[in-house]
């Protein structure tokens, strides 16, 4: 299990005067650790160990872990195996749409160091260069017991407020973005405005902006409204537009 070193900063504007604040924080952390909605992005082969972990044999729901179907609703993003470069783009898009606090779990050795795809030209080797990974579960592939053990470990870390990879993503966005640009090219952009979010929620750090975010701003194209097509009786008909 890898520890992420996060530069420690003095918290600004966080003086809490309410005597009940501690109790409240404790309650919130407890609830967060006991209720985790997971989005399993089933890349690679590790996904096959999730159904037994969820169904009657091991039953994740007794730990409060529930599968969810959209990134907006989810708390944990499970990456279950090797990520090809094309998939990684989707994974990052998905991650940025999730609401914080959010956690990433890398299941399988392939997410740790490339595993048996080390020599492949098309897979990303280390997931934590592109996303803040809170927990790795190694193994090719890990058994459901190991997955559950990992989940329990994550619960402990949420409980003690150590699992803050999501803050790291805001604070060192420039570094993550640099790695992403290295892989996807200079014109890589996502619809989510990470810098704007970081400053709005007071999560920005010294590494939020830098040379890579400047490059992003140079190459950024405004998002176009997407046109939707419905196929009606063989002919492709245009049916209005979706904005935002």
């Amino acid at each position, binding site marked *: 299990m890898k520890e992420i070193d996060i530069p420690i900063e003095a918290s600004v504007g966080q003086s809490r005067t309410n005597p009940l604040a501690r109790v409240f924080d404790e309650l919130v952390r407890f*609830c*967060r650790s006991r209720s985790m909605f997971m989005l399993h992005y089933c890349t690679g082969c590790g996904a096959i160990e999730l159904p037994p972990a969820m169904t*009657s044999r091991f039953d994740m*729901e007794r730990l*409060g872990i529930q599968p969810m*179907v*959209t990134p907006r609703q989810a708390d944990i993003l499970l990456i279950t195996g090797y990520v090809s470069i094309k998939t990684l783009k989707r994974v990052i898009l998905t991650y940025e749409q999730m*609401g*914080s606090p959010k956690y990433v779990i890398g299941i399988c050795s392939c997410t740790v160091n490339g595993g048996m795809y080390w020599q492949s030209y098309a897979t990303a080797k280390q997931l934590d260069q592109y996303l803040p990974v809170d927990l790795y579960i190694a193994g090719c592939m890990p058994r459901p017991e190991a997955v559950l053990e990992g989940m329990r470990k994550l619960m402990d870390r949420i409980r003690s407020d150590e699992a803050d990879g999501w803050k790291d993503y805001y604070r060192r966005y420039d570094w993550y973005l640099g790695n992403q640009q290295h892989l996807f090219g200079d014109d890589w952009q996502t619809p989510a405005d990470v810098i704007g979010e970081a400053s709005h929620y007071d999560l920005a750090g010294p590494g939020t902006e830098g040379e890579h975010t400047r490059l992003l701003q140079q190459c950024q194209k405004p998002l176009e409204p997407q046109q939707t097509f419905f196929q009606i009786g063989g002919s492709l008909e245009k049916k209005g537009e979706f904005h935002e």
Partner: protein
Amino acid sequence: MSIQTLLMELVLMPLVAFVVGLFMVLMLRRIGAKLQRRVGPPMMQPLYDIVKLYSKKTQISHGWMHDIGIIMAVGGYVAAETLLPVPGMDGIADKGGLVTLVYMMMVPSLGLALGVGQCANPNGSIGIARALTSMLAYDVPFVIVVFGVAWYFGTTNLVDIIAIQQAGGVAGWGAITMPLLAIAGLFALQGMLGKQPFEIYIAPAEIATGPMVEMSGKYLGGLFVMQCFQLYTAGVLYVSLFLGGGENWLFFLIKVFAVVAIPMTVAFLFPRYKTEQMIRLMWKWPVMIGLLGLAFVMH
């Protein structure tokens, strides 16, 4: 009734509804788990979920219509709770009556439609279109049932309806005197709670939970609260119309939980119908049974 008692009841009734609703959600998830031979979630799981969702740090709002939609969805049910008499508390039930209650129960769906419309997510739009269609489907038998009950008891006042049933003992219950309407009501209940086979607008594997697709953090928390109210409202309404309301809290809660357990148990036996299949089924069997029941009642 003094103004203080009234105010206290108006606050207490939604609160009680919320707490009972939390346990109903727990019961539904436990039933699901037992049927699949799992252990199921711990006792306080619904509460953990809601606290967790409300404590999310970042929220994604899609505009103020999105915000108001959620408020309407929860507010509609909060208003409905004050119109539902429970043992010891009548609230404003005898002033509102059954018709107002039926209107109030439609507000949440409309609020959701407004809110989801602004998310501009195709899955959400499909989901809400299906939700309104299914409302159209189950409302026909539902209105027939409500009309039949009101006709039989000669009043649309829920307090009176309950009092008449309780005066007659078990033999005076709506389910005994109007069995056909009670059966049609069960169909409508299944559709109202959106359980399989009528789960067309949630459909996680098909349209990614439909109306909930763009809801994150507090928005989803609002919908979880709404679900508690929805289960409670549907259960209590059915108990008030057909099972003689509550003589005391113990019998009342037993009846309400038993009624809500029926749709969940049935749900696991069925796959999901298509929209047009649901409408066809809803407008055929429950309507036919309901009309037959109505004919007996009016005869």
